[in-house]
């Protein structure tokens, strides 16, 4: 990591592209193998981004926002839109504009800036409060229940006072707690086995606008503040109360909350209606004004077995579906559940609300099915083994923390993309939903969320990252009369509601150069971003694996890599030994090698839940983090040198070293045999061996640094060489030494028991295939 720390490859714009110069034609582009794609972090914070307190000027034809690349005629008070060349008059209040008096949006360095949009005529304190509806599974053992309760209580303490809180618990049935009822604890109970529509939920909670029946509001109950809060339906404040008002109630409620009381027969899974619980929560939020920022925070302790969204039967002898089952179409619940969550996602997106999932269970809970709802709403997801585990505990806390560590959770994001003529948008991979906004820039083929130039991101945060795939129009560019602009422009408009409730619009306008790759391939090569390319390939592969049946990812990746090497390598035909790659490509094959071995492609070692989880994070994290997921970083600590990156190879293991492996989801601290022995003998506690103590401590300190910024908090594995936990490291290393060639190895190193090919073998094959005519 350290080597990356000082570089900011994304810059102020937060945009990284696979190709930083673009081939002119579609044909050329397709020859480049790696698709034209941009990874954008729409609201990544950066100290240099200014915020303007007014609304932006928009082009009257394409509604692109005024930006530094617009040509301005100061005398005529006219600006020319770089996207459509429309001439726009400046409005009167821009009258003072001149070459020396530029508005912020025309400063050349401010290719990215933010507008704080004035809220419609309302007083500043009327900013909508964020809404949190906690959905708590109660089908778990007491111990877990205690963990999750204490986590919840802590979270409640961290919520801003004005945040509205709702609480839903569920097991066999769903219980919506009416927090505003003072006489006694009151819950609405919904059956877990029956699908329930939003209207029904509202109707049954007494919230439906038509013929709604105001429920009994206790004397001295909570005073309706609905209107100020942007909640049209005053009834809903029976269920959603400001955190400051209901913290006590909720704490009491949590104290009394029991695990699900419905009996579970021997040999059966608990009956758990996650699906209905989520739709009830979503329905409840439906009573809020559309556009109110709201999250459903689901805390799930096991698979849904009851009602819609069930992923497995209650019979224990029926295992939860595996990848194999999915492949063989032997998962009877899978498709139905997906369908259900798709609908839920639609509903949530239309309401602009987010679904967060915190799942803690030893078995699967159905993340694979729920993925669609989480991803499309931009929700957070954390998968842990126990609610007592730090992966859950610390991550959960992070969600509600403010300040430096805050995730900067924002609501109601919308991304719009404007681009130069001839550029088409195929779609986006990442936590968003297509708004189906058609336009000339929409490509014929879709990748991910496509068929649109605008996307909804109900929830987004500082690290949210989207991958936009571009295509070029097939029409011949040379037809275009007049000046051929050598630059292409892309503009990303992201509007969102920040944590304080303020509506913001961030505008990022970037420009890149067109080149004729047939004329100057070197320039193209220079514009290649291998890290981004690797990540984009990983994301595209994941998508294809999910959406295309019997898609052979390894083959597809291999073919692509071979084609790429054939196109951009230097070699003599049919002479593998002559093969060399430009440095701009040199890391890429290794990325591909690790991608092929990663959990994203080799899914069979993981459960579908884990795979879904990994992929969701892969899709939403920035390039650096995503790259680590594909190709972990390894740092070695030893007496004789500073900590230094080590080869991701089994050869890096040595008895007198400590290795720190960061594979994003887990961090492994691996003590060499000798180190472990010393430590076990307690040398680190002896004053004369302080250096050893420091050596032992160093990886832990670095771990803290990594963990601090990461969400979800990675799982930390501390292990010793030859220990059982060492597998977490070994699985990620290049098997250059296996039992096949163990005899060649030096003492103190290790071997990996695998038949997988090593990087070296992989390269050999690659060279051979790349140079084949």
């Amino acid at each position: 990591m350290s080597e990356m720390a000082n570089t900011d490859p994304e810059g102020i714009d937060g945009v990284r592209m696979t190709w930083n110069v673009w081939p002119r034609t579609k044909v050329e582009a397709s020859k480049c193998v790696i698709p034209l794609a941009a990874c954008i972090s729409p609201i990544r914070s950066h100290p240099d981004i200014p915020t303007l307190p007014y609304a932006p000027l928009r082009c009257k034809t394409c509604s692109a926002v005024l930006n530094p690349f617009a040509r301005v005629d100061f005398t005529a008070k006219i600006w020319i839109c770089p996207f459509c060349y429309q001439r726009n008059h400046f409005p009167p209040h821009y009258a003072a504009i001149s070459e020396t008096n530029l508005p912020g949006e025309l400063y050349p360095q401010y290719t990215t800036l933010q507008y704080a949009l004035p809220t419609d005529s309302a007083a500043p304190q009327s900013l909508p409060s964020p809404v949190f509806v906690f959905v708590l599974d109660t089908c778990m053992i007491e111990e877990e229940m205690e963990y999750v309760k204490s986590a919840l209580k802590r979270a409640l303490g961290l919520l801003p006072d004005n945040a509205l809180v709702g609480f839903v618990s569920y097991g066999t049935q769903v219980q919506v707690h009416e927090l505003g009822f003072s006489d006694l604890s009151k819950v609405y109970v919904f059956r877990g086995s029956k699908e329930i529509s939003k209207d029904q939920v509202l109707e049954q909670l007494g919230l439906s606008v038509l013929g709604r029946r105001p429920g009994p509001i206790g004397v001295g109950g909570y005073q309706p503040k609905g209107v100020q809060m942007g909640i049209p339906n005053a009834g809903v404040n029976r269920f959603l109360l400001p955190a400051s008002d209901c913290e006590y109630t909720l704490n009491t409620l949590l104290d009394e909350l029991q695990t699900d009381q419905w009996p579970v027969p021997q040999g059966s899974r608990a009956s758990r209606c996650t699906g209905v619980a989520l739709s009830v929560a979503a329905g409840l939020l439906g009573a809020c004004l559309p556009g109110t920022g709201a999250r459903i925070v689901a805390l799930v302790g096991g698979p849904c077995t009851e009602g819609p969204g069930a992923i497995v039967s209650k019979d224990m002898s029926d295992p939860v579906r595996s990848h194999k089952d999915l492949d063989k179409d032997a998962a009877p619940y899978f498709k139905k559940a997906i369908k259900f969550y798709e609908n839920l996602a639609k509903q949530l997106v239309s309401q602009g609300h987010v679904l967060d999932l915190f799942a803690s269970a030893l078995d699967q809970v159905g993340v694979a099915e729920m993925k669609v709802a989480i991803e499309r709403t931009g929700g957070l997801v954390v998968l842990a083994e126990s609610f007592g585990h730090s992966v859950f505990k610390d991550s959960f806390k992070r969600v509600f923390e403010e300040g430096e560590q805050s995730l900067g959770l924002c609501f109601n994001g919308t991304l719009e993309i404007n681009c130069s003529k001839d550029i088409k948008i195929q779609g986006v991979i990442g936590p968003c939903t297509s708004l189906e906004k058609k336009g000339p820039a929409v490509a014929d083929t879709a990748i991910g969320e496509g068929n649109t130039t605008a996307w909804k991101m109900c929830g987004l945060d500082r690290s949210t990252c989207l991958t936009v795939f571009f295509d070029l129009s097939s029409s011949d560019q040379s037809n275009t009369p007049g000046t051929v602009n050598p630059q292409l422009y892309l503009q990303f408009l992201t509007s969102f509601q920040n944590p304080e409730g303020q509506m913001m619009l961030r505008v990022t306008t970037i420009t890149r150069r067109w080149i004729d790759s047939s004329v100057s391939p070197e320039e193209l090569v220079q514009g290649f971003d291998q890290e981004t390319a690797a990540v984009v390939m990983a994301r595209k592969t994941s998508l294809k694996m999910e959406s295309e049946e019997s898609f052979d990812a390894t083959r597809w990746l291999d073919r692509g890599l071979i084609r790429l090497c054939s196109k951009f390598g230097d070699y003599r035909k049919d002479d593998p030994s002559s093969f060399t790659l430009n440095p701009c490509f040199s890391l890429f094959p290794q990325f591909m090698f690790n991608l092929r071995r990663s959990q994203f492609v080799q899914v069979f070692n993981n459960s579908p839940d884990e795979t879904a989880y990994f992929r969701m994070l892969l899709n939403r994290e920035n390039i650096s983090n995503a790259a680590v997921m594909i190709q972990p970083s390894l740092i070695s600590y030893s007496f004789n040198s500073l900590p230094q990156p080590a080869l991701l190879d089994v050869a890096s293991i040595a008895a007198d070293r400590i290795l720190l492996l960061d594979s994003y989801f887990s961090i492994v601290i691996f003590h060499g045999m000798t180190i472990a022995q010393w430590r076990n003998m307690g040398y680190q506690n002896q004053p004369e061996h302080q250096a050893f103590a420091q050596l032992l401590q160093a990886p832990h300190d670095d771990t803290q640094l990594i963990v601090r910024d990461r969400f979800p908090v990675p799982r930390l594995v501390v292990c010793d060489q030859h220990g059982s936990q060492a597998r977490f490291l070994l699985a990620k290393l290049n098997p250059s030494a296996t039992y096949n060639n163990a005899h060649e190895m030096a003492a103190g190193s290790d071997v990996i028991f695998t038949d997988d090919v090593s990087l070296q073998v992989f390269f050999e094959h690659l060279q051979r295939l790349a140079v084949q005519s």
Partner: protein
Amino acid sequence: MAALVRPTGAPRPNNSNTNAPPPPNYSPNNAQRDPDSLAGNMQNLNLNRQPSMPNSASRPSLIGQAPPFHSSAPPAGAPIAPPPFSRPGPPPAALARPAAPRSGSPQPTLSPATTPVRSTGPPVGQPLSFVSRPPPGSFPPVGGVAPASGPPPGPFHTSGLPSGPVSVPPPASGPRPGPGSFPLGNGQSMPPTTAPGRLMSNGPPVFGSGAMLGGPRFPPSGNAPQPPFGHPPTVATATGPPRTPTMHSMLGTPAVSAPPGPVQQAPPFSAVPPFSAAPPFSAAPPSMQAPPVSPYGSQTWPMQQGQSPRMFGMPPPPLPNQSMATISPAVGQTGSPLTGSSKIDPNQIPRPVPGSSVLIHETRQGNQANPPPPATSDYIVRDNGNCSPRYMRCTINQIPCTADLLTTSGMPLALLVEPFALPHPDEEPIQVVDFGESGPVRCSRCKGYINPFMKFIDQGRKFICNLCGFTDETPHDYHCNLGPDGRRRDADERPELCRGTVEFVASREYMVRDPMPAVYFFLIDVSMNAIQTGATAAACSAISQVIADLPEGPRTMVGVATFDATIHFYNLKRALQQPLMLIVPDVQDVYTPLETDVVVQLSECRQHLEQLLESIPTMFQNSKTAESAFGAAIKAAFLAMKSTGGKLLVFQSVLASTGIGALSAREAEGRANISSAEKEAHKLLQPADKTLKAMAIELAEFQVCVDLFITTQSYIDIASISVIPRTTGGQVYYYYPFSAVSDPAKLYNDLRWNVTRPQGFEGVMRVRCSQGIQVQEYHGSFCKRIPTDVDVPGIDSDKTIMVTLKHDDKLQDGSECGFQCALLYTTVYGQRRIRVTTLSLPCTSMLSNLFRAADLDTQFACFMKQAANEIPSSALLRVREQVTNLCISSLLSYRKFCATVSSSGQLILPEALKLLPLYTLALIKSTGLRSDGKIDERSFWINHVSSLSVPLAVPLVYPRMVAIHDLESKKEGDESPFPPVIPLSSEHVSDAGIYLLENGDDCLIYIGNSVDPGILQQLFGISSANELPTQFVLQQYDNPLSKKLNDVVNEIRRQRCSYLRLKLCRKGDPSGALFLSCLVEDQSPNGPSYVEFLVHVHRQIQMKMVS
């Protein structure tokens, strides 16, 4: 009353039957101890004040009907002995006292339970002449009671008249406050045989009434009688004495009064002595009229009858055995009905006369079935083979041998079965027999249970089933040798071989699961209307108080839910700091919100429950939810208690408007469309749709019994919702229009009785008959899944099931036909029992026997239930016609085949059925058959009637009316609170009087326009009739009159097992009209006057005779 002693004890009578400790509860004695206390309690009840004590007190008394009887009993005695009484002259005071004498001593032998309690002895009665009498040991229970009875005994003995049972008042010092006691005692001592004939002798009932007319009105009559009687026992002797006097006076006067009658033949009705041969009891019936009837002074009947024939020179009865009443021939002869009718003296037509003395009824005598006393009389049963008539009685006490004979008679053949009927406290409790794991001995073919009529043969090695005739091997361990008389030697030690009613402990094979716990689930309407009318508060308060009366023990579970447009359950689990409200909002498709914890052991949640009930009314105070998901709420509650079954008590205030089983305001729709309303009026009395019926069947299947407490002020469609209680063995209580002032006390008392009365859960009942007869159909509150069985999730002492019978073969004349009702049920304490009730009746091929053995009360109950059945499906006119025709056809048959000798101008009524026309008329004018009633009231009536017991059937349509403005005028020493009963005719209602009229449910107090303000002040605390409150709560003021009124009301409550809905009626008001509509003998838009009706019946008979 008893309760006073032990408030908690009030408990469930039923158990007492079955369980060991029964008697204490009943003991009427307590009443004696503190006669006033009860009244006081009642008073309290009214005010709805005192929680446990008072209530408990009042209820228990209800159970033991005894008290009422006692009071009435003495009088009964009196009538019997004509000579002494006949003279208006006051009998010696001494006579009156006699009651006291009861050799208190005898009691010891008696049922321990009763006697012990009452040590104080009869406060009232004085041991005069009777002291000497040895109370027969055999009649143990009786003795203690009767203080009051004093007077009667004397006379009887001397006269040597009638039936032992009736006359003798052996004063048991003991338990029974009242008269009840003596009858028994006497029974033995007296020679029953001779007297009966005479007694029975048909006096024209008319006279009784006549007396009243001609002679002094009530006040006088009342006075006159009293002296003779001396002090009646604490309880209500009053009725008795006054009556007797009247009678006497009548006798004297009749001559006088009769003449005035238009016709030459003075007495319009002549009665021939019924059966000369008849056993003592036969005579008794009339005289015995029990509680319900008692007010009417049944005794008058017999006396007059006996005399009347002679006096009036009526033609002697054609046959000695026949009894009949004739109607003045004039009518018939002249052929002009009008004139005829006008000539009938309304005072001389048959009217019920209250019997006042308790009599002892042996179910079999001389190895023959003994016809039971009238259901409405006060009697004590000695079960010596046949079951007590309380449990099962037949419309005819002899069974016609052929279907033709039955058809000819025009009478119905049906059994009315009331397995949990309240026994008289002095009766021996039902004995429990435990056969161990093998279960009770049964016939292997028809599965009939062992009973006294199974004949053991072959040295006891085999037995012949009296039901199917099959010969079975006696189980080895049940074998016993036969004695010389052919009976098993152990027959008298084994209850199942010598008792008509026994209870067997059910063995494993009778259980499909463990006996269910006693589950009580309360479902309370909290919709806006319910809250605002105070219905919710009343319900909560009633429940809260009643919790203390639920059976103790770990098997008692409770649950509470409320509902408006949604259903709210409450988690009462102790672990929670406060109850948790769980709302089920989906009322189209309901479910239970928790598997456990919604229904919790009472001991675990008592505090929570009380707290919750207290807060419910305020919790929903501001509710604006007008809708009610009644059906859904029931379904949801059902789901919560599905695993166990139990009682679901629903308090409902508004029409179910949403969710499953939602109903529409059909009534209003009907009104809007008048033409169709007229035509289809009865459709509104049918359930709106099948949803609730289907739900009810499901409820029944899972042993959930639903009781509905309807506290409403508007239409609620009882026709639809009553299906649920009716199918599940529940009951409907109807408080309309609900008043937060006057109804809560009744609501509480009803609820309390509901949970404390004798009852059983998850019952299955079947009636088996001897070969030749089979069950045609069962009617009542239960679920019918298979035709042979009746499934009753809940059954209690207020439920009667009618079993119609039909012939499938000829019966042997002289043989006996057996009926056996077996009810398998679970007690509230979780024991599985089989209550087996066996009745064996002689078969006859003589029509006259049938008429002699006709049981009027039972037949009438039968007619009434059949009419109620018909109402929803036929036009009203048709039903009325049918009812009239039923009456006419049996009278016609009698006239045609049994009274052929008499002149065609006479309306001759069989003695046993002489009141049939009056009751029929009353039925036609009843709420159910009136066209002007509200739909819901009619539906309620129909539903009420369907499970009504025999003793309450007659009073429902022919209420009892008494004057209360002159209560005080009774002589001192007469402590019976009960004033004489007045015929239901406006002639007897004076503008200066205040009258109380009650039918077992409602109690109307009618206040004339020129009542003495002083009396108003004393009774109601107001100075003029204009200040009458519309919502009335009976209060006791500090004056004797008020106290007496309270005594009277409490007495009625005890007798009826009902708290009564009191309503003040004033002349000129709608309320006054309501009162007047109850005077069934008057002519009204709903039907002819009694006299006119008799004429109509007579003409019909004449016409049919001719044709």
